[in-house]
């Protein structure tokens, strides 16, 4: 018997604003994410992907339908989440290191352990920074970093407390192809090791197929799920995998579905 | 045993006329009576009455007319005056000779400037009646003490009211000689109200030994100051190192001559009142303040705490 889904969305819709300002951002989303599944969401700009992320983590209450996590309806922000928002929102008054260590100050059990094990945690932060190519930048303030560097810090902050659910909203958009592909590898390794549940929003179909078990394609605003594609390529996937026909086929299939959406 | 603590408030800052209290404090006369007195400057008589009424202070030095008003408005909670310091009040109004004001009758229709809490100002209606002008014909303007004399000099107001020994000296400091002034004191106009006295809180009134001791010590100091005003000025100088000794000496002498060492005091000693005159003055005051009914004299003043007359002969 398969384990029950970790996150379940049933006919979820969301409208921003009230009265004449009311605008439907997410039309009718139904999806279920298993524990330990890596999910990617793709779709045109403005279709409600970021909104979907906020709904899943309970940051926004849906205006229609139901969101449940581990069978419980979601009423507020759920626990054990690491989220990399689309805009980095690093705190300008903290150094980069302190920024990525923020979750450790808030999330248990790290919060409890932080004071006693500070050195160890700092080492962990430094290692994480180094792994994304930001070694030595821990002491800089976020506004002293380039756009891509801010984005990488943002990802580090989502990872550092080893969350069970990882939400990544276009995490690599501002990076060059090579840095990006390197980070795919790092992300996959992490996932293989820890088997957290991950939701990735991206515009890069190769990225989606490389990392995900399931890819959801969304329609234009108001967003609906128009296609669900399981990616059953064996893990670990490598850059070579991306040139294999099976991989390329999936990318093409997704591409076509989106194009259709776009042409409408 | 420890000395009884007594909190004492003046009606105004430390100056020559109030220096006897400082002399008594400095020379340890209060201490000799078993009192531990702390002394603070005040912000006008009304304030001093309030401080004593509220129990924040045990004893105060305040204008008895203010006290009459307070007692009239707070029946059952009267504060008593136990010692009359100014047998004649220092109240008066002052104008420049250049203004053309010659007699009190000329004040009608003119503009009066004074702090609203100034006793002379409050009693002006009674004075006006005495000299036969309609108090309503006089427009009055509130002026803080710092502004009062300057406004007269600048002509913003036609005349001002205030304590004689304050206003005359303040005007002099602004270059106005006594000769250039028209002075109408209230006592000259036949208004024989009283001036400042020592008032005690109801709690303190129940400790006659303390009050009596306080009065004995104060009178002793007053006697010395009357004989030798310089020691008063010296005490004030000790307390407030910035004062101008010559000026304070003049102020003190003025107040001694005009307000303290009156013929009545020379004859009957300091501190007591003439019952008949006092009753009359209460009526006058009640009239001027528009009080519904005047308090009985015994609800305002008592001679219960006074030392014997022989001890109160302060005139040198």
């Amino acid at each position, binding site marked *: 018997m398969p384990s029950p889904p970790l996150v379940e969305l049933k006919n979820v819709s969301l409208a921003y604003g009230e009265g004449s300002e009311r605008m439907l951002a997410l039309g009718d989303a139904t999806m279920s994410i298993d524990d330990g599944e890596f999910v990617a969401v793709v779709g045109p700009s403005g279709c409600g992907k970021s909104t979907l992320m906020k709904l899943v983590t309970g940051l926004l209450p849906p205006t229609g339908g139901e969101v449940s996590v581990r069978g419980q309806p979601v009423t507020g922000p759920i626990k054990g989440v690491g989220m990399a928002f689309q805009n980095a929102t690093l705190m300008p008054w903290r150094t980069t290191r302190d920024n990525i260590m923020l979750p450790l100050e808030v999330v248990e059990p790290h919060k409890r352990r932080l004071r006693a094990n500070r050195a160890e945690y700092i080492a962990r932060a430094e290692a994480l920074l180094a792994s994304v190519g930001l070694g030595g930048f821990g002491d800089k303030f976020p506004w002293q970093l380039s756009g891509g560097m801010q984005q990488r810090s943002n990802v580090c902050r989502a990872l550092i407390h080893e969350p069970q659910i990882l939400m990544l909203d276009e995490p690599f958009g501002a990076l060059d192809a090579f840095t990006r592909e390197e980070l795919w590898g790092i992300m996959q390794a992490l996932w293989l090791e820890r088997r957290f549940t991950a939701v990735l929003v991206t515009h890069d179909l190769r990225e989606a197929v490389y990392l995900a078990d399931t890819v959801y394609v969304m329609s234009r605003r108001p967003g609906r799920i128009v296609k669900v594609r399981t990616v059953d390529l064996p893990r670990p996937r490598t850059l070579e995998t991306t040139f294999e026909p099976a991989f390329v086929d999936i990318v093409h299939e997704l591409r076509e579905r989106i194009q259709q959406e776009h042409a409408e | 045993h420890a000395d009884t603590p007594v909190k004492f408030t003046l009606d105004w800052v430390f100056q020559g006329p109030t220096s006897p209290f400082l002399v008594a404090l400095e020379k340890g006369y209060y201490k000799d009576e078993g009192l531990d007195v702390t002394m603070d400057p005040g912000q006008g008589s*009304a304030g001093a009455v309030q401080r004593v009424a*509220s129990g924040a202070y045990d004893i105060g030095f305040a204008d008895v007319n203010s006290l009459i*008003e307070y007692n009239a408005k707070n029946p059952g909670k009267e504060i008593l005056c136990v010692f009359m310091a100014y047998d004649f009040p220092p109240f008066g109004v002052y104008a420049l000779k250049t203004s053309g004001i010659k007699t009190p009758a000329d004040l009608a229709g003119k503009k009066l400037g004074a702090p609203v*809490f100034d006793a002379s100002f*409050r009693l002006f209606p009674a004075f006006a009646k005495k000299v036969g002008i309609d108090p309503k014909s006089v427009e009055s303007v*509130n002026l*803080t003490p710092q*502004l009062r004399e*300057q406004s007269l000099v*600048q002509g913003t107001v036609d005349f001002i009211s205030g304590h004689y020994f304050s206003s005359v000296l303040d005007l002099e400091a602004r270059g106005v000689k006594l000769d250039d002034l028209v002075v109408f004191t209230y006592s000259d106009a036949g208004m024989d109200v009283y001036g400042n006295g020592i008032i005690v809180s109801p709690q303190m009134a129940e400790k006659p030994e303390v009050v009596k001791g306080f009065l004995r010590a104060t009178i002793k100091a007053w006697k010395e100051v009357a004989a030798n005003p310089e020691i008063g000025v010296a005490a004030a100088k000790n307390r407030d190192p910035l004062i101008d000794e010559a000026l304070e000496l003049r102020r003190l002498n003025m107040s001694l001559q005009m307000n303290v060492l009156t013929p009545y005091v020379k004859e009957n000693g300091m501190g007591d009142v003439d019952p008949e005159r006092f009753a009359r003055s209460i009526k006058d005051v009640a009239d001027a303040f528009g009080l519904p009914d005047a308090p009985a004299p015994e609800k305002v003043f008592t001679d219960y705490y006074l030392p014997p007359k022989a001890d109160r002969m302060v005139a040198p």
Partner: protein
Amino acid sequence: MSALQRRAIRLAMPWLTLLALLVLWEVACIVFHIPEIVAPRPTRVFEVVIQRWDLLLRFCLETLWTTLIGFFLAIGFGLLLGLAIGASPFIYSGLYPLLIAFNAIPKVAIVPILMIWVGIGALPAIITAFVISFFPIVVNVATGLATIEPEMRDLMRSLGASNREILVKVGIPRAMPYLFASLKVAATLAFVGSVLSETVGGNRGIGFLMLSASARNDSATTFAGLFAIAVMGVGVYAACALIERRMTRWAFRGELVR
């Protein structure tokens, strides 16, 4: 709790706290036998308010308009000087210390001198209200400007905008939340200023009324005056808060206070 209930409670809250405070005060007066001269019971004060309604209103209106004129002058000049200080390091370093110095000086000491210069009446009250409420506006506007994100400035500079344009297009909108914060302080200070001036000299305004009442030992009327000032202060604040909500909605878009 439904949104409606929340809203109702929010509207009722200030009145409830006020009521609680007044009841507490009344009870304290009775229990501790506080003499009326020290602090009259609120019921006594309201009695006076009702009895002397017309008188209070007249004096209040005198105070209100002088205060408002001073307040508006303070907004105008405060904004200008705040912008100047925020925009020019020389004006900043030349004027700021002097402004601070001037503001540390109690206005009580200045007002009599002012009256010697300009006479007695509404003018010194307006000037005092202006002078006293001016400074918080300057400080907050200058801080608002100084904390402009450099990205915004770069954007404007890339368009070849002059410093004045940067000030107008970015500086002023950006400083608005700071401005409105300062207006709450400035409005209350403006009342303090005009009332202060009225107590120092003249025979107009609620300050004069209060002072002469206190000289008569009529503390109920003095307190009625205090209440009246408080009510006017809250009125002006409410007006500012209303405009604030309209003009700086963007800054409050994520309000903790919802």
